[in-house]
């Protein structure tokens, strides 16, 4: 069954909401957001540091296929409630995009399905629109390659 990711971004607002339902029990959905080796696989980023706890901090890095660093991102974790909620800040290093607040909620639908909602709040409307217009092609291809590698290993 194909499940679609929804992005709700209203005109003139400085926030967005990303929602998605999964064919996964909530424990597995949450685990994928809490463990470095799993995040590396689906986000397509290298996890330099991840303290999955209140007052913890995190730092990820995306590299090009040649190994050059494309972007470093990081922030602090304000709230970490297993299977319920992660609140953190997010900032891309050496960019003019400022900091964003991300409130990620996890919801059990049935024993085998669950839902994630990410509420992202930017510093301003202009900043939100700039971030949404960033070129994503590279990140997307990278994620595809990671998925392909992973699936190949399973064969």
């Amino acid at each position: 069954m194909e499940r679609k990711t929804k992005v709700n971004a209203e005109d003139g607002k400085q926030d967005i909401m990303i929602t998605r339902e999964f064919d996964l029990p909530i424990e597995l959905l949450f685990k994928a957001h809490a463990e470095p080796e799993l995040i590396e696989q689906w986000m397509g980023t290298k996890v330099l540091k991840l303290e999955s706890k209140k007052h913890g901090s995190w730092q990820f890095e995306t590299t090009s296929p040649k190994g050059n660093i494309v972007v470093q991102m990081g922030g602090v974790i304000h709230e970490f409630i297993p299977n319920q909620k992660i609140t953190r800040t997010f900032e891309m290093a050496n960019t003019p995009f400022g900091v964003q607040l991300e409130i990620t909620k996890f919801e059990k639908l049935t024993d085998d399905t669950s839902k994630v909602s990410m509420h992202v709040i930017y510093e301003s409307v202009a900043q939100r629109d700039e971030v949404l217009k960033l070129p994503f092609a590279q990140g997307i291809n990278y994620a595809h390659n990671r998925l392909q590698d992973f699936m190949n290993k399973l064969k």
Partner: protein
Amino acid sequence: MNLRRDVFQAIADPTRRAILLLVASQALTAGAIASNFDTARPTVSKHLQILTECELLEQKQTGREIYYYINAKKMKQVADFIEPFRNMWDDRFNTLEAIMKAYTAKK
């Protein structure tokens, strides 16, 4: 100084969005557009100027009248600006689902 018009600022205004909706169904003159609003005519003209400057509307002369047309290509570009971002998250979440399904299978 004339500031460069931002298309996203242009569509953030409710009157301008109403104008776009109106013109989307048929090409209209400035007078015909203004007759749909309580707003003063010069205000509507200003909105039309902004929409034309950022290429959401196009003007075409037909006889003595100037008609406003919607620029479908530009409108599509605006509607699609969220789509690459949504696709990025959709790809990530598809990967997450695949990985975690394999993760359960391995246990």
